[in-house]
């Protein structure tokens, strides 16, 4: 089709199923970007209706009103009102409502109507409403609201067919937008709108004969003052054990695969091509391979986060953690961004947008990089498997898993401490921001939406492995290979390279914390992405040793490092600001370099002091 596509926008309160509808309308034809100038995520996608209209659709941030209390809500308001530069006003707004929970959305609908744009009400989750025995007189409701209404089940195959059909019918006719009568609602307006919404609901909805007692029953355990916290701790513990143990077989498979591929190249290449051979085997394949090996772990951690989110547990976790985090000067809502930071600080920092108070948001951004992100896992795994025996304690706890858990705990504890200190020094006069959150009903997680979510993240990770990390690997291989050793030179060739020069230059600074020059070399590309340090160590050592393949890095390290050095590097990785992209995101999110510099410096100082203490303590204890 050559005509410009029609623009739809999904508007509605949080948790009404906008993203699920978006997924089921567009499938995998989605694009995630940022709105220009701000850092709110812009999710757009396209599809073709049954009658052949090509349509683009926007998944707007959830909101309870057009008041715009946070940057996300301002985006929704401005797009709906057609005030957003560079974003055309939608041809049709699909206002999404949870059919089992109409009160708040209907008030939003009444507010949206005042904007005067073409609009259709989508009663989503009609399957749940039916199961519970809620009946809705759709004709009457449509009459009362003066809007077309369709029902949908966003998560079922064919659950949006009526929506598609009605969209076609709607778009077939021209629609004039009326002049907007919208003004920022006052409290009296809000109350009047809520009364009107309640009146309509009373007239058209017959309430459930069996209310959702299941959610309540689950909550009486999950939100229990004691058991709730125990369950939360168990969930986190299982998550980290899983990351360490479940991923193992897949990781071994991948690492064997890359080793075999490297060997194959080695064998196939003719003898005289030593440099190219070394580049392909040691620079390219083992470099990228040693990072891709961690894909299974990243998939598992995102699987957990997305499952918990979809199930409705994340809001409960915020409830349980609000006071505890409040003690450290954090908002309950910070829990979700911080939990996402376990996967990667970048989405975590971006997720702090749900915190509408600027100071709370800044504190959360400041400590998000201390959460153990998945890029640290490669480094932790490498060192732990080289230095910690894989014994089983008490019959079920894997010692390596326990150490991993300890590293996570150290990250969390230090984050809370930093936050408490920041609260004390930076904003002592600051009263806590309010915590107000809807606790949605529990839902069975949907395989499809989880799969889409995990897939997007895996793609992001592989993309990073394929671009940033690959180019860093090529760079480090170059630094480690040139200038080449003069003919007849003594010792390993890498001792003559640029890498060695840089490493030796930094070594005096790092010697007090137990790092040798090889570690110093690996830390440099590790700034681009933490996990690169693993491959870099491989390059540094395998080139030096000549024969060791990348999958034997661990064994090499176990011979070359003392336990004190290994522990010091582990501790370094808890704190060090070893990620240029995180720093870049902080700069973007806080609108200036100041907080980026603050984050970098405080993390560097923490890392140096903590590693110094660890190294010297370990040496004093005789851990060689």
């Amino acid at each position: 089709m050559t005509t410009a596509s029609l623009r739809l926008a999904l508007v509605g309160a949080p948790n009404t199923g906008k993203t699920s509808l978006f997924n089921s309308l567009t499938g995998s034809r989605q694009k995630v970007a940022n709105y220009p100038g701000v850092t709110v995520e812009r999710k757009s996608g396209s599809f073709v209706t049954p009658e052949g209209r090509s349509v683009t659709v926007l998944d707007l941030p959830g909101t309870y009103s057009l008041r715009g209390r946070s940057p996300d809500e301002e985006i929704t308001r401005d797009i709906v009102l057609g005030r957003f530069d560079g974003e055309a006003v939608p041809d049709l707004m699909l206002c999404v409502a949870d059919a089992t929970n109409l009160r708040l959305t209907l008030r939003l609908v009444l507010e949206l109507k005042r904007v005067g744009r073409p609009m259709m009400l989508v009663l989503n989750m009609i399957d749940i409403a039916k199961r519970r025995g809620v009946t809705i007189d759709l004709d009457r409701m449509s009459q009362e609201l003066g809007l077309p209404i369709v029902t949908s089940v966003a998560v079922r195959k064919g659950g949006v067919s009526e929506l598609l059909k009605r969209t076609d019918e709607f778009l077939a006719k021209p629609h004039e937008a009326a002049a907007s009568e919208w003004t920022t609602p006052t409290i009296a307006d809000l109350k009047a709108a809520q009364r009107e919404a309640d009146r309509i609901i009373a007239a058209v909805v017959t309430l459930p004969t069996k209310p959702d007692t299941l959610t309540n029953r689950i909550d009486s355990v999950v939100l229990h003052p004691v058991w709730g916290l125990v369950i939360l701790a168990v969930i986190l513990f299982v998550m980290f054990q899983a990351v360490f143990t479940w991923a193992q077989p897949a990781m071994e498979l991948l690492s064997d695969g890359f080793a075999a591929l490297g060997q194959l190249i080695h064998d196939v290449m003719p003898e005289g091509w030593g440099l190219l051979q070394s580049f392909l085997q040691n620079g390219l394949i083992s470099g990228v391979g040693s990072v891709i090996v961690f894909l299974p772990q990243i998939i598992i951690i995102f699987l957990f986060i997305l499952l918990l989110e979809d199930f409705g547990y994340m809001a409960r976790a915020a409830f349980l953690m609000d006071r505890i985090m409040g003690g450290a000067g954090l908002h309950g809502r910070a829990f979700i961004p911080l939990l996402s930071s376990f996967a990667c600080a970048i989405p975590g920092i971006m997720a702090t947008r749900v915190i509408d108070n600027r100071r709370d948001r800044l504190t959360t951004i400041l400590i998000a990089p201390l959460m153990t992100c998945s890029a640290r896992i490669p480094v932790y795994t490498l060192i732990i498997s080289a230095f910690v025996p894989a014994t089983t304690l008490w019959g079920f706890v894997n010692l390596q898993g326990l150490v991993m858990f300890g590293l996570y705990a150290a990250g969390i504890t230090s984050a809370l401490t930093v936050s408490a200190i920041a609260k004390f020094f930076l904003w002592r006069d600051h009263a806590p921001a309010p915590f107000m959150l809807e606790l949605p009903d529990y839902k069975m997680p949907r395989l499809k939406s989880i799969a889409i979510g995990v897939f997007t993240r895996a793609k992001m990770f592989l993309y990073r492995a394929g671009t940033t990390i690959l180019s860093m690997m090529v760079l480090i291989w170059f630094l480690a290979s040139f200038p080449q050793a003069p003919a007849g030179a003594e010792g390993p060739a890498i001792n003559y390279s640029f890498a060695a020069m840089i490493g030796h230059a930094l070594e005096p600074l790092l010697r007090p914390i137990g790092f040798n020059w090889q570690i110093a070399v690996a830390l440099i590309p590790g700034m681009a992405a933490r996990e690169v340090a693993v491959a870099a160590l491989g390059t540094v050592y395998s080139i030096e040793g000549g024969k060791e393949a990348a999958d034997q890095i661990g064994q090499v390290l176990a011979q070359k490092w003392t336990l004190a050095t290994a522990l010091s590097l582990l501790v370094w990785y808890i704190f060090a600001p070893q990620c240029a992209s995180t720093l870049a995101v902080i700069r973007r999110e806080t609108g200036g370099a100041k907080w980026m510099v603050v984050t970098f410096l405080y993390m560097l100082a923490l890392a140096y002091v903590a590693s110094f203490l660890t190294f010297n303590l370990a040496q004093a204890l005789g851990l060689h």
Partner: protein
Amino acid sequence: MTGDPDTSQDNLQDIRLGHADRGFVGKIIRLDALVTGSSLSPQELEQRLVEMGFVEGARVEILHEGTIRRDPIAVRVDNITIALRRSEAMAVIVE
């Protein structure tokens, strides 16, 4: 019913939701955001409460309480559940 009866009220039966215990069931009489421990301005607090469905006449029930100082609370407001802190719930006058 427990909680301190608010002395500023004419009706001694009216209490603030922030004082009520778990299991409390009642009805919202009005909002009064002037004297709460919230960091929000009274007007902003009232607006947010209304947006979350706390309006006159709504049935409220305290379903769950947090671990530390029984805060925050999970409140059933008609047929949705809202989590909020007691300091903000002080603005909700119930009977």
